[in-house]
């Protein structure tokens, strides 16, 4: 059995039904274990590192005086080394933010969605995450409430001597016509001594007419492992608009499963990744058009240097009854070195007629003539390269609606 499955005393272990949920996760993970090269969904991103037997789950929280310095106003929710840290920010009317364990025990309505949205037999790391179900946050935005300031979930890690392993599980529910901006920021500070593993699951439920802009910045330490799954259920006329920047970790996988389950639902799943060294950064999407008149757009752009490897697996599934749907997908990569690599696997599964679907992929290098032009004006090579890289990412980052966040992401991408 994998060393990732450890027996630790979790809160509520004496409650049979809760134990049962966790046990199901453990069993599902025990069946598959850490994916190998033979696992189709993981054939390009090999999480070999995660087979090591030296991951340690810390059982007590340690507060740090680290503070996120975000250049935009926001409500902050913070986790330190995988543990919830209460914050002193007052939330406006109509928003509820509850630590997950509290929600599981005292807000029975969470069980309508919690651990229901993804099939854990298909997602080994979601199964593993469920076996530790404890830390995370439940966010509920009431009907017709439009959140003015973004909600930011910060996961901050201080890598220690040991290889930390932690799981976070968030449930985000937007009721009818609610609207919000959610930011996830995964960062670290201190010295990079160990290769910690952050295993994350978000379940996002959008009721009819709800709008969510979800922005994520994965800026983990360079030896870290970051595996994240966001599952989104989008109901009638709701909108899920996401952007994920990955620029840290040795293995980083950001997987998004969107179920457009009622007509008029739409999703925009955009991403950018920037990498060097030996990193593998993986963007995997699965957009399921389950109902008629649903739309999805994806733009993913990567900048790959060193011996790094970018992975994009993008699936668009159109169910038999999902007529008059539209699904587009485009992946582009900029290769900065001869040893940089990119693996792209687009997949269209179309079972309906009268649909508009497209996918495309392109990769290229920095243009020598453009570099020379800038250098001939006195701009140094590194600066010239950076200008071209910024320009390359401009359109995808430009899709972030919230201006303050967009400017922040632009800086994070440098």
């Amino acid at each position: 059995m994998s060393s990732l499955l450890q027996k630790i005393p979790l809160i509520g272990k004496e409650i049979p039904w809760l134990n049962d949920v966790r046990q199901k996760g453990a069993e599902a993970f025990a069946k598959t274990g850490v994916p190998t090269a033979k696992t189709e969904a993981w054939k390009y991103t090999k999480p070999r590192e995660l087979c090591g037997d030296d991951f340690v789950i810390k059982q007590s929280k340690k507060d740090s005086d680290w503070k996120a310095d975000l250049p935009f106003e926001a409500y902050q929710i913070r986790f330190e080394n995988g543990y919830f840290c209460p914050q002193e920010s007052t939330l406006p009317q109509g928003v509820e933010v509850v630590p997950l364990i509290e929600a599981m025990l005292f807000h029975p309505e969470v069980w309508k969605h919690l651990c229901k949205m993804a099939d854990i037999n298909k997602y080994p790391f979601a199964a593993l995450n469920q076996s530790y179900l404890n830390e995370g946050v439940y966010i509920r935005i009431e009907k017709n409430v439009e959140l003015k300031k973004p909600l930011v979930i910060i996961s901050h890690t201080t890598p220690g001597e040991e290889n930390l392993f932690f799981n976070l599980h968030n449930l985000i529910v937007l009721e009818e016509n609610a609207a919000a901006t959610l930011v996830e920021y995964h960062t670290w500070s201190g010295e990079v001594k160990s290769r910690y593993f952050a295993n994350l699951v978000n379940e996002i439920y959008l009721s009819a007419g709800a709008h969510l802009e979800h922005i994520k910045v994965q800026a983990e330490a360079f030896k870290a492992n970051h595996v994240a799954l966001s599952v989104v259920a989008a109901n009638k006329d709701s909108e899920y608009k996401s952007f994920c920047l990955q620029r840290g970790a040795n293995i980083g996988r950001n997987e998004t499963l969107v179920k457009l389950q009622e007509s008029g639902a739409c999703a925009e799943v955009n991403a950018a990744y920037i990498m060097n060294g030996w990193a593998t950064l993986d963007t995997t999407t699965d957009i399921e058009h389950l109902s008629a008149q649903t739309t999805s757009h994806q733009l993913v752009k990567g900048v790959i240097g060193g011996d790094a490897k970018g992975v994009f697996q993008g699936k668009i599934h159109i169910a038999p009854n999902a007529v008059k749907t539209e699904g587009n997908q485009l992946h582009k990569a900029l290769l900065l070195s001869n040893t940089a690599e990119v693996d792209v696997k687009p997949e269209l599964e179309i079972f309906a007629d009268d649909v508009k679907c497209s996918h495309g992929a392109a990769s290229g290098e920095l243009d020598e003539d453009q570099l020379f032009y800038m250098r001939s004006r006195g701009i140094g090579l590194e600066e010239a390269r950076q200008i071209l890289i910024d320009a390359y990412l401009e359109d995808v980052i430009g899709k972030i609606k919230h201006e303050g966040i967009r400017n922040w992401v632009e800086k994070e991408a440098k």
Partner: protein
Amino acid sequence: MSKTPLLEIEDLCARVEDKEIIKGFNLTINEGEVHALMGPNGAGKSTLSNVLCGKKGYEVTGGSVRFKGKDLLSMSPEDRAREGIFLSMQYPVEIPGVPTSTFLKHAVNAIRKYHNLPELDTMEFLKMVREEGRKLGVDSEMIKRPLNVGFSGGEKKRLEILQMSILKPSFAIMDEVDSGLDIDALKVVSEGVNALRDGKFSMLVITHYQRLLNYVVPDFVHVYADGHIVKSGNKDLALELEEKGYAEFVKEK
């Protein structure tokens, strides 16, 4: 009056992809001088410009180039620019996604930094661009657009000269700055070029047409064929070439 040499090219030989293009090129340009370089298509004029500015893909196989007494060929392209060389390109490059003004600001400040001058802030920079732009008919709408993208041939050339007047080089190579310019624009651009002539600023003007040389009057005219200068003279040589063409200089093939 003793002359101070600015650019000294000696026996320069260079090739592109195993093809010898420059074969023993000699030329000295002193401070304040304007030299015109004329020659048939494919003679290697743009190649010479690129070699002098350090573009990749051009292999120098012999000779030397000194600029202000320093070995030019060992410098990076950006250092050549920072030392005061400017190349107005025959085909300015388009850079989508990079606003012209952003690019210009990077360039100005990179050069200022090299000379230990404080960087210009956005206000100072815009003021300067607006002033210089007005003289050359480059409006502020144009510099908001991505660099050279969708610019007409003439607009691109005007922008080259705008860059030159902002970056204030001590030596400029103008590779067919007159191509694509209408008659009025030619005048405007020439005035922009002449405004830089302060007795020290020097130029190598590459052109196919005498007309530009009516405005930017050269001290010397050189005919470049078969990889080197085959004839030099004063401005009257340009008039002669206009009449007779290059026939007498081009070897029978």
